[in-house]
């Protein structure tokens, strides 16, 4: 079947044109594993405690306030994690 007669195949051609490196197993491992890892935050308590032990008196390096992603040399601290406060406000559906 010609791609232009099948709308789905035409869309596939469009996608492959934009992302030539797209893998050939779309519903397979990569997508599914990404789905299973939802919620992962980059805080390693082991790294944090080892860094604390090594540096002792010095301050731990902290990320610049604008940075949203914590990578590389920066050791995340519990303060860097987004503060998860429970919702104390009532639902607006009840208002």
């Amino acid at each position, binding site marked *: 079947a010609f791609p232009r007669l099948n709308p789905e*195949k035409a869309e596939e051609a469009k996608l492959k044109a*934009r992302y030539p490196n797209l893998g050939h197993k779309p519903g397979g491992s990569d997508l599914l594993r990404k789905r299973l890892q939802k919620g992962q935050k980059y805080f390693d308590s082991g790294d944090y405690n080892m860094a604390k032990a090594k540096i002792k008196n010095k301050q731990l390096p902290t990320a610049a306030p604008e940075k949203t992603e914590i990578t590389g040399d920066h050791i995340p601290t519990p303060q860097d994690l987004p503060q998860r406060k429970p*919702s104390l406000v009532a639902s607006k559906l009840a208002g």
Partner: protein
Amino acid sequence: ISGAVQGAGGDMQWCLSQAKGSLDDDVTEADIISTLEFNHTGELLATGDKGGRIVIFQQEIENKRQPQYRSEYNVYSTFQSHEPEFDYLKSLEIEEKINKIRWIPQKNAAHFLLSTNDKTIKLWKISERDKRPEGYNLKEEDGRYRDPSTVTSLRVPVFRPMDLMVEASPRKVFANAHTYHINSVSVNSDNETYLSADDLRINLWHLEITDRSFNIVDIKPANMEELTEVITAAEFHPHQCNTFVYSSSKGTIRMCDMRASALCDKHSKMFEEPEDPSNRSFFSEIISSISDVKFSHSGRYMMTRDYLSVKIWDLNMESKPVETYQVHEYLRSKLCSLYENDCIFDKFECCWNGNDSMVMTGSYNNFFRMFDRDHRWDVTLEASRENSKPFQVIKPRKVCAGGKRKKDEISVDSLDFNKKILHTAWHPQDSIIVVATTNNLYIFQDKMN
């Protein structure tokens, strides 16, 4: 009111009865509605949101101002069901978002429901208190203790009426049984057990026992590199307490019989529609992923929702569905952009009406679709305050897929993909429907009845 005969879909005239929620254009994330469920009589409607809160509405049967409108739902109880947590060991943030609410059939004056987030299921008791004891001998009315030496006579405390108070209390917490994210809970018809399903496993619980559960399905491969499909939804059969089904990201539904073995890894039936391999594309598997599975009230059929369609399956026929309804086929030529903006992964739910003659599901642009199975009729309606005046019949909508757009039609490119209706519910006995937009609730009723 109960047992109202529902006319053919084409005769139905839906009117907006109530709209609830903030009118703000800016949506607070916590207010995003994540689940919706009527109880078995339709008297109570529970909603759960991303902020972990549950709001329960109760139907006012006698509406004195407008006697013909019996679908006024008012707030009955509201409480915080789940709180956000952080699992430091796994570096995992656990959202408080309520994924599912399921009511337990009522056995006494109190109401019970199960609510779940990604990791923990809770059993909540919702009870009414309309009297309190008064006239204690050793306590003042404000609770302070009296000096016993001042008591010169005795009286018998009595119960006196008080303003109705509805209390929600957590009775059981079913925790630590799921490594992956819980997508479904389903109460068994035996009223003693229930199942909870995550991406790879399904567990069976007893409602009274929180310290253990039985694993009944496990599709985790020994090597995670070999992972090809995940569980997307699961439900117990409404009458057969040994039967349940679970759907997958590959578009299959497996039916299992718990009498066959303790671990139901071998299905007793597998429902799958054969696909033409020449039509297969990059998107085929993604759009075949089933986002919801619901048994009919009769127990003879089940309905599945995938990205573009709703399918009805006869439980006696595994080879293909008996009915297929296109929800928004015009999106097939937009799959590339829907993949880029992640909309292709949206999980739409679906529901049956009370006598299984009609089904409903949501779409984009705050549109929702209804299909009349008996009369092969369907309609697109919109949940919008601007376009619906209370008690006026709402107009059907039409999407123009291409070519010349008629007046009153909306073109595919004008659809707002941020306005998704993922959750809808149909009153189990009456022609009353509830539709959830991102953060608002719309209640419609059929004018004819």
